[in-house]
């Protein structure tokens, strides 16, 4: 009798899912981070807080919100949890500097009350470092709601449809920047940002698969809930998994060269554009890798990766001054295409080619492969040549059948 273990992989997708799952932030770490940022939110909103009157609210942004977090490359590195600290205030209440420092003072008091080091000031945010064991730090971005000005700027630049889409622009914010000329002045001219709008756009790019995954989750968990009641972070779509794998590939390929490696927002934006709701990770990777570079725009000859919720912002703006960044993107894409292509197109699911193993982390991949394919690890007897040949014939028959169903395009001929 053959006993099938449902945890064993039987396809490329099973293997990629297991690798991506292992790259993801573990649920316990995710909950720990959530609890900690909720605790900061509660602290900022406590009665004694100098900003309590402005109803401060903490919410995630970046990969934590998009569901594309990848585990740090080494145990010594930390998860970077990006947060927005949004106050229900106006620019009449604060200068940029005033807001930054008011939030900073409260974050410093939180740190002190919890025996932590003082927060570090960045150009736009405060970084709160936890004890080494926590394995994460939080970047807190002080912000005010500023949808109206954001929409006005979009209108001025001719993006009328986007400006009137409140789902994408209604949560835009004004942020602080200590290098901004109006940083210390009472002014309405603040830098603008729209991380929630970006997340809404990203979510729309995978809506079919997200809803499908939530329904499957509800069924598995035996709960009767609508898709809207299930939090996004409970499930993962092929797009999110593909992005996690691509970011890991980037991390491994440019280990020791973080400064010039392709940045996550470019990979994420181009991948989401290229994704066509494929139901599998392999399918998502194929679509993304073969066409992500078709989504570059060129403005006066300059490569442009437009922010989908503010097309005048170029995520690749550094490429003009630092050509190495563009060269590295091209190099990475070429390598990723070949590495994933060699695995998905040229290999059996339980035989990962050396280059992809290397570029996803050899030890890490070997552990995953061993856990997912114990039979091969234990050295199953080789399939006989005749059985393999019969199997090839069956597969060829299926391939022929598929082509017949889609309408055969061509017949061989002899020119002479």
């Amino acid at each position, binding site marked *: 009798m053959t006993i099938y273990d449902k945890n064993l992989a*039987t*396809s*490329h*997708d099973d293997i990629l899912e297991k690798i991506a799952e292992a790259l993801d932030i573990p649920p316990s770490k995710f909950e720990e981070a959530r609890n900690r940022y909720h605790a900061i939110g509660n602290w900022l909103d406590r009665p004694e807080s100098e900003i309590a009157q402005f109803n401060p609210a903490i919410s995630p942004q970046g990969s934590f919100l998009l569901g594309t977090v990848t585990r740090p490359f080494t145990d010594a590195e930390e998860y970077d949890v990006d947060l927005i600290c949004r106050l229900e205030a106006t620019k009449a209440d604060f200068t940029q500097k005033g807001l930054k420092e008011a939030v900073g003072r409260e974050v410093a008091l939180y740190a002190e009350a919890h025996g932590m080091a003082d927060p570090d000031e960045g150009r736009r945010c405060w970084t709160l470092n936890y004890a080494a064991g926590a394995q994460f730090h939080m970047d807190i971005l002080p912000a005010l709601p500023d949808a109206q000005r954001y929409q006005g700027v979009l209108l001025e630049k001719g993006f009328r449809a986007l400006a009137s889409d409140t789902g994408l622009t209604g949560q835009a914010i004004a942020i602080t920047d200590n290098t901004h000329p109006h940083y210390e002045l009472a002014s309405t001219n603040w830098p603008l940002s729209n991380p929630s709008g970006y997340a809404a756009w990203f979510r729309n790019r995978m809506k079919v698969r997200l809803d499908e995954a939530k329904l499957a989750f509800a069924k598995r968990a035996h709960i009767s809930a609508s898709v809207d009641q299930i939090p996004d972070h409970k499930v993962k779509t092929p797009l999110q998994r593909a992005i996690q794998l691509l970011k890991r590939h980037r991390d491994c390929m440019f280990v020791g060269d973080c400064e010039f490696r392709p940045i996550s927002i470019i990979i994420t934006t181009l991948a989401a554009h290229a994704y066509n709701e494929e139901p*599998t990770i*392999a*399918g998502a*990777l*194929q679509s993304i*890798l*073969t066409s992500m*570079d078709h989504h570059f725009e060129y403005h006066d000859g300059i490569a442009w990766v437009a922010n989908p919720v503010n097309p005048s912002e170029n995520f690749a703006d550094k490429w003009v001054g630092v050509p190495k960044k563009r060269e590295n993107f091209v190099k990475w894409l*070429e390598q990723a*295409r*070949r590495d*994933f*292509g*060699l*695995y*998905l*197109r*040229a*290999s*059996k*699911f339980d*035989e990962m080619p050396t280059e992809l193993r290397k570029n996803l982390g050899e030890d890490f991949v070997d552990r995953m492969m061993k856990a997912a394919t114990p039979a091969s690890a234990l050295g199953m007897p080789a399939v006989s040549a005749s059985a393999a*040949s019969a*199997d*090839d*014939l069956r*597969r*060829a028959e*299926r*391939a*022929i059948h*598929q*082509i*017949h169903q889609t309408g*055969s*395009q*061509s*017949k*061989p*001929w*002899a*020119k*002479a």
Partner: protein
Amino acid sequence: MLSLDAVKAAIAFDQPKLSARLDGANILIEGSYLVVEGAPAAASGPITEFAIRMEVNPRYPHLEPKVFEVESRIPRNPDRHINGDGDCCVTVWEHWLATSADHSIASFLNGPLNEYFLGQFWFEKTGKWPFGERPHGAPGMEEAYADALGIANRRDVLIYHLRLLSQAWPKGHWACPCGSGKIIRHCHRKDLMGLHSRIPPHIAKKMLRRLMAN
């Protein structure tokens, strides 16, 4: 003009065992062509592989690429749709141009070339061509053109149609090719307009030139 970068991008994922480089004016693609069941991946890996060399002119798809099987796995016999030098008779080029909406190099690699090598593998195992085959030489070409146009396979009819379709706009005062004796304007005008939009003049001209040369 087809660039080396575009070819590299087309093969990198789908055919990762091929590599491309410039060879004089041409783009040379070499390596193992994978025949895979379904896309993007098959759990058991590719069904088979063929060692190939492809010469692609930058004026592709205006000029047909040449594909050679380089390890003599396919016996050099016209009945196997291959010439003595390994030149593979993949398809009647203009038939593919006329019947496919996507003429990119990726579409050629995943379409006719895949069918050709899958067909070769199937013939090796069963002695049959899974998608049929064309007669050798001019008769095969005529059959393919007639198929593409959706008309009877008669050389005179074919030539008349192709002359008609080679015009920038089908001439309403020409005799209708159906043989009714009426002029097109008063006969199959609508059908011919539809055919004209499906087979553009540059493809019709190519077909006509090749047909007349044989």
